[in-house]
């Protein structure tokens, strides 16, 4: 108050002065001139208020700021672009061995550039399959010639993959393919080199091509045209070893049955459609230990697989079959297959043991009831399915098991209780193994039909051969990295688009670890270690998904800027109007008054002059 009264005093003084000095300067105009300097007090006061507000603003913003863990946006972008621009390419090494070829024969000049020839054929084949996880362009081909007594290494022959000279001289080719496969594994196996052995036997007129369980194949027969052999070897390398002998229309990476956390639960269900007719039971413990364990071990790099089983009852299928007199069975045609699985009555269920993002593959043994027994599936061609089963991609597979002599048993008074014998179980699980291979996109038949001939594929007792596992691991590594890249990319876009979202430290950590795992996967891929790459890419993907689906992300993103505006505007809006208007008025007034004073000064100067 003291200040106000003081200023009142100073402000009220000019008119008195003017009256006093009115006689002195008759041309003083109190509308345009003043004799005292305009006061600064009010100007400074209003400016101080304004500036203290402006200074307080950052502090206020800081106090209402939400915690956001810093995410490595740049690293995420670089990873995403790196994965998009060039897909993961693994280096592959191929070895072509010619056995029993006469060193001095006419073949020799051609053998010199055989490596080149094979490479050129391979690039021809590779054009058509340039999807993720191949050895696109990043391969070496070495050629060895074994004449029995001495060996010649051609081309950029890798010294580590030397062919043991005369290794096959003791082998008797009358033995089975399996024996030869094991023999070859003993001589050339152990390394990550894909080998094709061409054996010239000078007997028979057809070339016989066999792909073994490990990483090698062989061609036996009378070798005539060298170009033909080279083409055959090239096709084998590209189509079989690199891309896993897949069909064109087979399952691609995005339909891979692996959950986002890198886990698969194989849920085996025995469905008794009507237990009033018969009740079937199985000894799943034995199946689990004997039949499934080797396969699960083989697939360990690709996914973390667990197995569970249950037996369900009263589970009819949801569509009808018709009786066919010719086949003496109930026929279910392929076009009705989408209605076979009865989701109302088949309580296959998700598993409590599995996490939320695990993939569950359902394998169902369907035991039909007496009034639809024997039930057979009919192919579109009109034939009866041999396996009597079908798959549904990413869901699982169904096998129909018809109880033996079901027509006779149907009228028994008491329900028949039977356990599936181990022979029946073996048959069923053979079909399931084929279905599992199909779900992974592999061939379920034992031969591969290429453009340059048909080759026999030997089946492994583990269900998956080593070269197939390599191909799967490569594809999975590549697909997982792609997914990891897109997930992290979406997360970074989401985080950047929602500035009011809390990001916990945990998310930041997960993103960091995910990026590290992705880098490790890329590094392993460049070294050609495909299973290690698959494992670390799986980690990268699951961590990225964990970060994206972190529960805190969903709950906070609804806290909007409007909310803040509604809370703070009733105070700051009227206040800022007051403060800004006061400052504007004061400045205007100060300018006006100083102009007045300047005019007076000028006048006084004029007078004094």
């Amino acid at each position, binding site marked *: 108050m003291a200040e*106000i009264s003081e*200023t*009142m005093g100073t*402000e*009220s003084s000019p*008119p008195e002065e003017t009256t006093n000095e009115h006689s002195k300067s008759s041309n003083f105009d109190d509308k345009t001139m003043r004799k005292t300097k305009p006061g600064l007090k*009010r100007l400074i*006061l*209003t400016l101080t*208020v304004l500036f203290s507000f402006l200074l307080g603003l950052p502090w206020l913003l800081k106090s209402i700021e939400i915690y956001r863990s810093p995410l490595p946006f740049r690293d995420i972008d670089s990873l995403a672009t790196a994965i998009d621009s060039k897909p993961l390419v693994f280096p592959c090494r191929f070895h072509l061995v010619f056995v029993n070829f006469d060193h001095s024969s006419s073949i020799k000049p051609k053998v010199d550039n055989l490596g080149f020839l094979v490479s050129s054929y391979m690039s021809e084949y590779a054009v058509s399959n340039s999807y993720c996880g191949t050895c696109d362009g990043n391969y070496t081909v070495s050629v060895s010639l074994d004449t029995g007594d001495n060996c010649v290494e051609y081309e950029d022959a890798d010294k580590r993959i030397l062919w043991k000279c005369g290794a096959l001289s003791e082998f008797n080719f009358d033995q089975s393919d399996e024996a030869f496969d094991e023999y070859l594994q003993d001589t050339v196996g152990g390394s990550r080199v894909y080998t094709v052995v061409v054996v010239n036997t000078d007997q028979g007129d057809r070339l016989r091509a066999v792909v073994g369980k490990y990483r090698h194949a062989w061609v036996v027969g009378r070798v005539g045209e060298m170009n033909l052999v080279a083409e055959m070897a090239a096709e084998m390398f590209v189509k079989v070893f690199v891309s896993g002998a897949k069909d064109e229309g087979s399952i691609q990476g995005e339909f891979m049955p692996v959950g986002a956390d890198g886990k698969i639960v194989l849920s085996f269900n*025995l469905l008794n459609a009507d*237990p*009033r007719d018969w*009740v079937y*039971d*199985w000894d*799943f*413990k034995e199946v*689990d230990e004997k039949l499934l364990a080797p396969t699960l071990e083989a697939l360990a790099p690709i996914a973390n697989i667990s197995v*569970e*089983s*249950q*037996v*369900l*009852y*009263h589970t009819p299928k949801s569509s009808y079959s018709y009786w066919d007199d010719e086949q003496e069975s109930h026929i279910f045609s392929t076009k009705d297959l989408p209605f076979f699985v009865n989701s109302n009555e088949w*309580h296959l*269920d998700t*598993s*409590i*043991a599995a996490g939320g993002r695990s993939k569950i593959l359902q394998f169902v043994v369907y035991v039909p009831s007496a009034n639809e027994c024997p039930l057979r599936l009919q192919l579109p061609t009109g034939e009866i399915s041999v396996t009597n089963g079908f798959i549904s991609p990413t869901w699982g597979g169904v096998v129909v098991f018809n109880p033996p002599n079901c027509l006779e048993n149907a009228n028994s*008074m*008491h*329900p028949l209780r039977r356990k599936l014998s181990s022979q029946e179980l073996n048959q069923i699980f053979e079909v399931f193994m084929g279905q599992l291979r199909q779900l992974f996109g592999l061939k379920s038949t034992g031969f591969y039909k290429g453009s340059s001939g048909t080759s026999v594929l030997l089946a492994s007792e583990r269900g998956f051969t080593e070269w197939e596992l390599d191909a799967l691991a490569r594809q999975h590594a590549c697909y997982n990295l792609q997914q990891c890249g897109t997930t992290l990319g979406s997360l970074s876009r989401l985080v950047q688009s929602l500035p009011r979202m809390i990001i916990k430290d945990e998310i930041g950590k997960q993103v960091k670890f995910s990026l590290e795992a992705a880098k490790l996967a890329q590094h392993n891929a460049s070294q050609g270690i495909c299973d290690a790459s698959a494992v670390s890419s799986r980690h990268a993907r699951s961590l990225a998904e964990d970060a994206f689906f972190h529960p805190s992300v969903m709950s906070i993103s609804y806290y909007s*800027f*409007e909310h803040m*505006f*509604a*809370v703070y505007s*009733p*105070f700051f*809006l*009227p*206040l800022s*109007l*007051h*403060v800004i208007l*006061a400052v504007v*008025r*004061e400045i205007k007034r100060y300018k006006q008054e100083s102009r007045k004073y300047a005019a007076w000064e000028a006048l006084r100067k004029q007078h004094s002059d």
Partner: protein
Amino acid sequence: MSRFLSISILLLFVLHVSSESAGEEEFTEELLFRPLPDRKVLSHFHFESRAPPTNSYGHHHRLFPKAIYQLVHKYRIKQMELSFTQGRWNYDSWGGFDPIASSNAKPPGVELWAVFGVPPDQVDASWKNLTHTLSGLFCASINFLESSTAYSAPDWSFRSLSGNLRYGSLPREAVCTENLTPWLKLLPCRDKSGLSSLMNRPSIYSGFYHSQRLHLTSDEFDPVALHGIMLEQTLTIVLQPDSLETHPSFSGSRKLQPSWSMSSLFGKTVDGKCALAKSSNVYVQLEGSLVYNMKNTWNSIDSYEGDSNFGFTVSPDRMMKEINSIDKEGYSILYGFSINNDHSSKPFDLGFWWKLPVTWSCVKAPLRVSRFLMGSGNEKGAIALSLQSTEWSQSLLKADNNGEKCNLRVDVFQLVPWYIKVYYHTTKIYVDGASQSLGDIIEKMSVSPSEDKVSPGVMEMILRLPCDMKSASLTLEFDKGFLHIDEYPPDANQGFDIPSAIISYPDFQTRLQYKLDTTSIKSPMVSKMQERRTILSYTEVLLVPLTTPDFSMPYNVITITCTVFALYFGSLLNALRRRVGEEERLRKSKDKSTGKLRLLLSKLSAKLRGKPWEPPSSTPPSSSSKFISTKVVIKIILIAAIAFGWQYYDG
């Protein structure tokens, strides 16, 4: 020699029994009917599945539900009970002393308790995960029990299992078919065949009481697992049969009890037993007092046929009489019916009819318990627990008439949410209306007061009441707390539920022991009845109205305080920068010139008088009007800029 023989036979028998119990998976289904004194019928379904221990049997099962097995193993559950209940068990007329009442009468809503076989520091984490899994499994909001304000760890008053037990209940959970369907899914036959096919949804949900229960016991994590996992699923329903045919000769004062049959109660019949069930039995139980009251007209009890008071449409396969009855006057009778699995036979439809009118009453719990609220207003209140003696405790007095003073032990367990702030020091006990000192009555008491937003208040108490008392009551005062705005549930004006208190009488144990004849097959339900169990009863759920705010209030408060602050601040600023002297001078000079209003007035009067208007003064108003217009323009621009900025920021 003979002794050796008998020992060896006994040994063989024991070995046989132990091998049987550990050997195979088993599933049994049973159904019990019991006519109730108030013209209703109790139906009690009992399904039991057993899985042998994992270390001998492996983890693949053919009958036992996969989900439950995984649940037990994931959370290392030793024992668990989950119940969904609708309606309240009428302890007075439906009985409070028999095994079914003490194990299947449950509080309304959801009740869950579990004992975990994990180290004590992991129990809470296991409980939280378990609630989430169960809520997914049973389509219920059991996950609300996750919060530490919703469950507690009773020390000794509940089940006398200490340490790893957690207890929680949701009184307001609505129970309907979506909870029953997943429960049925755990049965091998679901409701496709067997006794469960009776469960016609409209009829079971239109009953007076409906309680669906799941009880798990496992010794999987004990060092020596003998029994494996046992899953007991029960569904208890109290239904009112339609009394269509009343006997004409008894239309007088004493009305005949209504007759019923499976088809009249459920609208369905049983086609045959579940093919997977080891045994499938239906029982009709007649209570001891009913049998006693019928004795007068009933000559030979051993055969129900003839001149008995009632009849069955299907003749019973066996009859079991109670031995060692607690009720000296009469003994209970159990009639058993086996369902065999014949395709050809006609559907099984058990009917029961009365020939003569009879009245009886059930054996009640030692005390009649009720809990209610006292006080009014939204600030304070009191919880009162009233215990009234029944004729049963009167008879006890006569029986225990030796020199010592007879006592009745009553255990009380009560869980109160934190927003009901109970003052435990205000506990008062009245016996027969007279106030008693706490030390005389309370033998043991442990109280953990609630902590705001952290834990509920738990009260455990052992009362020793004199046997000859008529009534006792216990009161506790409380203050109603305030919740944070976002802690109110939807429809907060309805009020808040306080879960039921559990009253148990450890001195009394109930068991119904039936004389089993050699021909009768082993029945899990009957053996369950023969187990000794403490009598337990639940009180009513209390509904406490809390002060609920106007939920738009925070914004209103923010707006009004902000406006007040802004006004204060603005006027202060104006006062600081005002120049009183100058303004006065300006006003004086302005007085000479006419104001805008006066200009308008003069214009108007000129028009009215019809004279050409002339400006009253020389000073043109243009400058002032121009000043006003620039001011307005500036304001408009300012607002537009703010709006633009807002839009821009928002977009």
